[in-house]
């Protein structure tokens, strides 16, 4: 059982890495590969590396994060990301101090606007980080959300 899980994980991971590296994959084709490692890692840098190939992000004013300053209920924190950066490929939402920081990643086609909105769970007060990948570069912005009651159970 363990061996099987391992094989599955490593196979999927390497195939995708090769294909993406070769620039063969359109967002549609990547679809089958949910980035398991990025979602399960406890380290934000690792998550970004897995998703975008780099943990280096350039801070920018051209990403705006709409989220409450104080979230009374950490189980439901509305987060909207808007960005005017040209050619956005992906937008990731990260809650810095969650056990597994990566909350969501959105792959956008050419005709999608630089906007996504959803609701996430936050374990405690921390920064919400939005990472936008465009033209092979990663940009980021952050906003602190104070959480009164954590929302990850446990």
């Amino acid at each position: 059982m363990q061996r099987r899980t391992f094989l599955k994980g490593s196979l999927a991971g390497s195939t995708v890495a090769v294909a993406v590296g070769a620039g063969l994959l359109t967002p549609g084709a990547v679809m089958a590969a949910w980035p398991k490692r990025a979602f399960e890692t406890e380290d934000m840098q690792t998550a970004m590396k897995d998703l975008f190939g780099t943990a280096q992000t350039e801070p920018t004013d051209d990403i705006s994060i709409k989220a409450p300053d104080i979230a009374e209920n950490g189980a439901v924190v509305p987060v909207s990301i808007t960005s005017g950066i040209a050619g956005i490929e992906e937008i990731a939402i990260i809650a810095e101090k969650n056990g597994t920081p990566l909350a969501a990643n959105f792959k956008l086609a050419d005709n999608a606007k630089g906007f996504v909105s959803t609701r996430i769970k936050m374990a405690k007060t921390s920064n919400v980080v939005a990472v936008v990948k465009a033209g092979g570069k990663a940009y980021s912005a952050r906003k602190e959300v104070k959480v009164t009651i954590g929302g990850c159970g446990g």
Partner: protein
Amino acid sequence: MAKSIRARATLKGDTVTVKSLITHVMETGLRKDEKTGDKIPAHYIQEVTCEHNGKEVVLAQWGPAVSKNPYLSYEFTGGKSGDDVSISWVDNKGEKDSLTVQVK
């Protein structure tokens, strides 16, 4: 079927705004059953595919940190009234659902 999804797509100017709500437990796997103390197994949506006339516009990849009964909104250009907008999700247990609505 599509009982789990509610969605609305509205056209304003050249932009279609899609708003959707999905009914799902989004269980993290960290919570414990209050009576038995057993961990409740993780059960959450991993991917939501959003299409416009059969062409993918947004692919959302989610972890368990997306809230219960997830809300998702996005915008795209190039749509017109009457176009199909479809949303389909699949979770970590392989359960899935989809819904197609028309742009208003």
